[in-house]
């Protein structure tokens, strides 16, 4: 009876085409039946050389490319890049433009988080909440379309401000939408987030302790899910965030251990509520005025480099820019949140079920194009 049963591990390719990999990622997993022994994530299927493209386009011309880094949160990516160039130039952005930037950015944050939690729901087999949350996102897309004319790749922020002013009656429309949105999303949470089956699937799965999260350089909601209260908007305020009143939600281990999938998921749920708060404040406070600072047509920032950090939905996104005084960046490096989230998967995916791996990917909110740029 003491002799072990001799079993072999099966090696399975999860992806590049797999329903739960959220894009083109490949995981090579070695499993013992349903239990994963080893997981080797393989990135690079979506590498488009965006950082290299920057070296051959003008400073303004690179803004639409930042849309493509993280297609779920284009506004925030635009923002980070524009801020970096503005810092280099020393341009002051008009106050109204800052407010518009916050409004657009927070709307985009909501829509990105809606996809994140919706995709996590769908990975757990609940398709209705996913579609309903996407419906809410569709309304946000409509709103963003009103201000900039595009639904996904906005190219709304320009160096020194924003490209278009808010259309007439926009505040009323956003307020009306928020009244609907808060109730509708709360209902979707009752449908799936507080569902016992869902909680059982997410709670106590792949817990990341605060130390581990910091060791792996987690950022954004993933880091806050582990109970570390760090948010660039609060810790290193940019734009007008220091004037606004909002909380930084962190994981509280409400149903499981600290830093498990449910905590990471729930931080996003809470962040949507906070974003709604921010939006309401901004819409009330927004001043009249210019939306664009005077910027020359051919920008030539002084020689030097700059690293800017902003809080995008997928965490701390950094733009490192090196300028040699020409009309295009000499070197540009983007640091994204998904990539750091991805690096912990081999660690987390040890001795968990295949179904749990899907939950882990869903809760880390990995967007494939952002991994590879």
């Amino acid at each position, binding site marked *: *009876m003491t002799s072990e*049963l*001799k*079993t*072999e591990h*099966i090696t399975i390719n999860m992806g590049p085409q797999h329903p739960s990999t959220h894009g083109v990622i490949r995981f090579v997993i070695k499993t013992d039946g349903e239990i994963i022994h080893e997981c080797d994530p393989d990135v690079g299927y979506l590498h488009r050389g965006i950082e290299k493209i920057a070296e051959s386009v003008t400073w303004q011309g690179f803004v639409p490319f930042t849309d493509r880094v993280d297609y779920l949160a284009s506004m925030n990516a635009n923002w980070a890049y524009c801020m970096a160039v503005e810092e280099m130039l020393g341009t002051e952005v008009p106050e109204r433009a800052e407010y518009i930037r916050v409004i657009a950015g927070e709307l985009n944050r909501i829509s990105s988080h809606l996809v994140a939690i919706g995709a996590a729901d769908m990975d757990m087999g609940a398709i209705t909440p996913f579609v309903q949350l996407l419906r809410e996102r569709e309304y946000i897309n409509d709103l963003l379309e009103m201000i900039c004319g595009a639904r996904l790749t906005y190219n709304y922020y320009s160096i020194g401000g924003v490209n278009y002013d808010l259309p007439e009656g926009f505040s009323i429309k956003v307020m009306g939408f928020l009244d609907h949105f808060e109730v509708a999303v709360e209902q979707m949470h009752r449908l799936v987030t507080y569902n016992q089956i869902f909680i059982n699937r997410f709670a106590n799965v792949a817990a990341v302790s605060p130390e581990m999260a910091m060791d792996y350089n987690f950022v954004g909601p993933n880091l806050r899910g582990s109970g570390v209260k760090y948010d660039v908007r609060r810790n290193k305020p940019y734009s007008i965030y220091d004037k606004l009143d909002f909380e930084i939600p962190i994981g509280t281990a409400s149903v499981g251990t600290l830093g498990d999938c449910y905590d990471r998921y729930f931080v996003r749920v809470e962040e949507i509520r906070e974003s709604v708060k921010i939006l309401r404040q901004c819409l009330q406070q927004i001043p009249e005025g210019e939306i664009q600072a005077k910027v020359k047509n051919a920008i030539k920032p002084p020689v030097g480099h700059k690293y800017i950090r902003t809080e995008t939905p997928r965490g701390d996104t950094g733009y490192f820019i090196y300028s040699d005084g020409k009309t295009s960046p000499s070197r540009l490096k983007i640091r994204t949140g998904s990539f750091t989230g991805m690096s912990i998967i081999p660690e987390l995916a040890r001795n968990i079920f295949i179904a749990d791996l899907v939950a882990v990917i869903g809760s880390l909110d990995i967007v494939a194009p952002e991994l590879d740029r």
Partner: protein
Amino acid sequence: MEIADLFFYLFSVMIIGLGGVVAFSRNLLHSAFALFFVLFGVAGFYVLLGADFLAMVQIMVYAGGVCVLLIFATMLSDNISQPGKSNLSFQTVLSTVAGGGIALLLLSAFENTTWNVVAPGAMEPTTNSIGKLLLNEYILPFEVISFLLLAAMVSAIMLVKKGENS
């Protein structure tokens, strides 16, 4: 020819043919799957004999339970995820002796039994009488056996749990 005769021959062909597959197939899983249909055919015979309850229990316990467990066990063996895995046997002498012995035993039993031949007629459903017999006359053996099974089950769980803890 009665309709029952047709089914008799059908089931016979099924049992003999698939029994051959079980014995001679080089693919372990083919044997296992064929065994399922052999057991199914035997259940068909029970139905033809009027033993309806027995037939259903045969399907439920042997075909649905034991056979599926067997397939599970087979799939646990080495390299089974590749179809075409062969199961060549090397213990020819031993298996011939064992098989021949069993065949002889069965043959002698067949020869020495006086078979009660009953005229074919309307066969009564047996469920009722089996139930009554089990819960009246044979209640003690029935309970003892169920207790034994329960004990076996509990101990199996205990064994597994012990392995898990260490």
